C-alpha cells in the first residue's frame, strides 16, 4: 500500500471517528469542538430534532408627535414554490429567525439580564435590531422598539406574554 493510500485512509477515518464521537458525546465535548473546529468540519446533524417553538418578531414606532403605532409582525417566512431551490432572501431571514430564537431562549433561561449592555451588545441582538430598524419607516417616525413573543396555533392566534421588549432605538 502506498504511503499516500495510508495517509488518505487515516485522514478520512479520523475525520469520520471525530464526527461519531461528537454525535454521541456532544454534551461532553461540544464546547471543545466549538472552540477548535474552526472550519465547521464536524457536524452534529440535529436539525429538526429540537422542540418546535416559534418566537415571532414585532416592532412598533414612536412618532414625532409622541404617539405610538400598534405592534406589527415581521414576516420571516418564505413561501413561494420556487423558494425550495432559489431563496436568496432566506440568507438574511433565516439568520434573523435564528437570532430571534436564540435571544428569546437566552432571556427565558436567564442567561442574561435583558436591557443590560451584555445583552444589547450581543451579535444576535444587533442583527435583530438592525433588521427591524431597516424596515421602511415614515418621515414622522423618530424611534422604533421591538419585542419577541412566542406564538402558537396554526394561525399564530394564541400568544404568550412577550419574552422580551427592547428599548426604543432612535431612527
Amino acid at each position, binding site marked *: *500500500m*502506498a504511503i*499516500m*493510500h495510508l495517509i*488518505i*485512509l487515516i*485522514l*478520512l477515518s479520523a*475525520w*469520520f471517528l471525530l*464526527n*461519531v464521537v461528537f*454525535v*454521541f458525546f456532544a454534551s461532553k465535548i461540544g464546547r471543545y469542538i466549538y472552540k477548535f473546529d*474552526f*472550519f*465547521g*468540519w464536524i*457536524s*452534529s*446533524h*440535529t*436539525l*429538526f*430534532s*429540537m*422542540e*418546535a*417553538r*416559534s418566537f*415571532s418578531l414585532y416592532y412598533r414606532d414612536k412618532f414625532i408627535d409622541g404617539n405610538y403605532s400598534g405592534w406589527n409582525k415581521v414576516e*420571516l*417566512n*418564505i*413561501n413561494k414554490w420556487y*423558494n*425550495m*431551490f*432559489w*431563496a*436568496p*432572501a*432566506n*440568507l*438574511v431571514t433565516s*439568520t434573523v*429567525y*435564528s*437570532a430571534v430564537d436564540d435571544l428569546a431562549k437566552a432571556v427565558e433561561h436567564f442567561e442574561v439580564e435583558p436591557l443590560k449592555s451584555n445583552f444589547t451588545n450581543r*451579535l444576535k441582538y*444587533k*442583527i435583530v435590531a*438592525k*433588521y427591524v430598524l*431597516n424596515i421602511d419607516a415614515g418621515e414622522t417616525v423618530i424611534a422604533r422598539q421591538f419585542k419577541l413573543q412566542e*406564538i*402558537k*396555533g*396554526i*394561525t399564530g392566534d394564541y400568544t404568550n406574554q412577550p419574552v422580551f421588549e427592547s428599548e426604543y432605538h432612535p431612527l
Partner: protein
Amino acid sequence: MSIIISGDNAILWVTRISVVYLIINCAEKLYAANQYKNSDILGWYDLRRHTYFLHRPNFIKAILNGIFCFNTWIALIALRGILAIMVLFLSASGFLTTLCLGAIFVIISLSNLRAKPLGAETEDRVMVMITGALFLRSLMPDAYVTTICLWFIALQSCLSYVAAGLAKINNKSWLKGNGLYNVFTTGNFHSEKLGQFAIDHWKLVRLISWATIIIECAFPLVLIVKAPYGLFFLIWGVIFHFIIALIFKFGKFFLVWIATYPAILFVIQ
C-alpha cells in the same frame, strides 16, 4: 435486481450533484451580496466583534479582516461558483480538478469559519465533508482511494441520519409522536393548510413522526442489507428530502444529501 455503479461513476455523480448545490448557493449569495457589506446584517464588522474572533492574536485578526471584508469575501464566493462550474466540465481527476476541488474545499471551510458566531449553514457543513473527500480522491484517483472516499461519504451520510434520529428520541415531544405535529402547527415554517392537515389527521402525522425516527435510526442498515433491499432506504431518503424541500423550502438540503447517495449505491452493491 442488481445495481452496477462503478467507483468512477459514483464519484462523477457525487461531484455533479454537489456542483449544482454549489452553483445555486453561490448565485444566491451574489444576488444578496449587499447584505454582506461590512456594516450590514451579514457583514464582517459585527461578526468580527464576536468573542470567537475578538480574542485572537492580532496577526490572525489582520488575516481574517483581509479575507472576510466585503470585497474579498464576495470575490471568493464568486470564485467558488466559477470553480464549481469548471469542475462540472472537467474530468473527475487531473491537476486542474484537484486545484478546483481544493480551492472549493478551502472556501467552504472559510465560509464556515466566518459564520461561526451565527452557526455555519448546515448544508455547508456536509458539503465540506463531500468536497474534502472528492479533493483527496482527486489527488490519487485509483480504485483503492476511490473506494475509501466513497465509503467515507456513505458513512457520513448514514451518521447524519442516525444523529438526527437519536436527537429526536432524546426529545420528549418527538418520542410521544408529537414532533412533526408541533413542527406543522407551531413555528415559522408552518402554513395554515399544513397545520389544519396535522390537526385533522393527527394519528397519521404521529405515525409519520415515529416512522421518521425509526427509519433515520435504522438508516445505517442500508450498508448491511445491501442492494436491492437497501434501495428502500434511498427511495425513502429521496421522498423524505423532497417533501422537506417542498414544505419547508429547504431545497439545498435535498441536493446536499442526495449528493451522498451515489456513494451509498456504490457501497451497497
